[in-house]
């Protein structure tokens, strides 16, 4: 019944335990938030799910298939797309080329180049970057880079999207725009979303369920209101100076 499921995932770097026996599950079509203070292990969990790191222990299942040992590109072809906390578009490629790489990466057999270009433009338009097609990605500002990255991830035709702090560094109007984007992603592309946010802001309004990590351990899980009231969560966030 889970679209994506992680069982007892542990990961450490040298002496630092970044994840300790973490369990989670996401249902098809759900928007799930992953929150936790600085260094809680959120990004590490994404990296493990997306195949950047192998977990020391535990397994990951996609549609009940064990995908723990697959590489990033294999997971992407199976339908897991992700964005990065610090956006990483290809700096020396144009915005259009950035998205073309995703479309090429699908390795579909029949596909003429005009169609590919049209499709790439469609994704650029989706994130309101249609006027920037021929601009090198390194010349974009932070928000545009984040949007380009979302478009690039979408262009892989994912079933699940992992979004790492899309709202960080955005002001209120920009956050509103981003929220609209997220909602359209759900409605137009029917993508299941797993979402990292550092602060308990907007995510509480959109996510259907929240998972809270602290020091590599899952300390709470549930509906946004329940989680916000959980004393363990409040305590974890008290120690965090950024909030």
């Amino acid at each position, binding site marked *: 019944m889970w679209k994506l499921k992680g069982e007892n995932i542990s990961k450490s770097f040298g002496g630092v335990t970044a994840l300790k026996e973490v369990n989670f599950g996401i249902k098809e079509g759900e928007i799930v938030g992953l929150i936790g203070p600085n260094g809680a292990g959120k990004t590490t969990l994404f990296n493990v799910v997306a195949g950047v790191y192998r977990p020391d222990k535990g397994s990951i299942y996609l549609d009940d298939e064990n995908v723990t040992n697959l590489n*990033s*590109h294999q997971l992407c072809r199976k339908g897991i797309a992700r964005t990065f906390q610090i956006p990483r578009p290809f700096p020396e490629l144009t915005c259009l080329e950035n998205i073309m790489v995703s479309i090429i*990466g699908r390795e579909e057999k029949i596909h003429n180049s005009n169609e590919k270009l049209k499709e790439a433009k469609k994704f650029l338009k989706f994130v309101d970057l249609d006027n920037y097609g021929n601009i090198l990605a390194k010349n974009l500002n932070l928000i545009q880079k984040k949007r380009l990255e979302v478009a690039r991830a979408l262009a*892989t035709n994912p079933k699940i999207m992992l979004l790492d702090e899309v709202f960080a560094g955005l002001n209120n109007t920009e956050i509103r725009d981003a929220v609209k984007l997220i909602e359209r992603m759900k409605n137009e592309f029917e993508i299941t979303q797993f979402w990292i946010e550092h602060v308990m802001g907007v995510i509480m309004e959109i996510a259907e369920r929240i998972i809270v990590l602290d020091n590599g351990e899952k300390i709470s899980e549930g509906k946004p209101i329940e989680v916000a009231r959980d004393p363990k969560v409040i305590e974890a966030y008290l120690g965090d100076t950024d909030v």
Partner: protein
Amino acid sequence: MKKSNKNLLLVIFLGIVVCLPFLLDDYWLHVAILTLFYVIMASSWNLLAGYTGQVSFAHAAFAAIGAYISGILSVQMSISPLITLLFGSVIAAIFGLGLGLLCLKMGGIYLSLTTLGFSEIVHIIIKNEYEITRGTMGLEVPNLLGFYSKTAYFYIMLLVTFIIIFFLAKLIKSDHGLKFKSVLNDELAASSIGIDTVKVRVIAFTISSAIAGFAGGLYGHYLLLITPEMSSLSQMFMILAMTIIGGMGTLSGPIAGAVFLQVLSEYIRIFGKFHLLLFGVISLLVIKFAPGGIVGLYRKITQSKTDPLKIETQSKYDY
């Protein structure tokens, strides 16, 4: 620069190149042939370093493999060099594929150190296996055509150079080229959107090895005497220096670099033993102060004259 202008320049340049045998004396025609060899070598090394971000130090060694395989086969089995040439290229490609598969899953640094080792080993084997390779004496190999004509050889080299440059240009513009560039730009991001980065790098490495093997064979059947010097690190350095001085990551860079260094070599012949030192210092200066090389400088000059905003949209890579 406007497209039509650029095309006109290109046509004039090609016209001059095609007429070279009528403009140059015998010696300079020889230099021109060598230059074409280096154009192929630098361009194919550039496919690797400039477009996928992997530094191989075995490019000269692959050329030597091509030359020796083709040479030995044609001498010992009396097969026509036109056929053995292909064998040389295939063997180089196989070595490239093997080395690529061996190292590339572990990241670029392993490719560099393994190819450096490989290059030394090829050098040592050629020197030591005297009975097969004639060691430092050099191996005499037959002429490609069966008759000796510098002019004919020049046109053959030129044709091959055209074909290879054309092929590289097509490749870089193709979907494969875009994959190469994505890997060069950001490996992690590329793999996150479904690009098999190891496969992409192995493919690029194999293609470039095959080209080096072919070019080496052609070169050998022109020189008629091939020596272990072909696989030396000095040769490797020349290829690398040409690419860097010309402009890495552009199609025209290695061509410009090869021509520049070959012609410069001729003019500073009297300083024979300072050659490599001088080229080394020039390349270090280029990396430090003009990382785009000759092509980068040229673009900077022409662009700032025409339209400053254009820099924003110009892709660094040639199309």
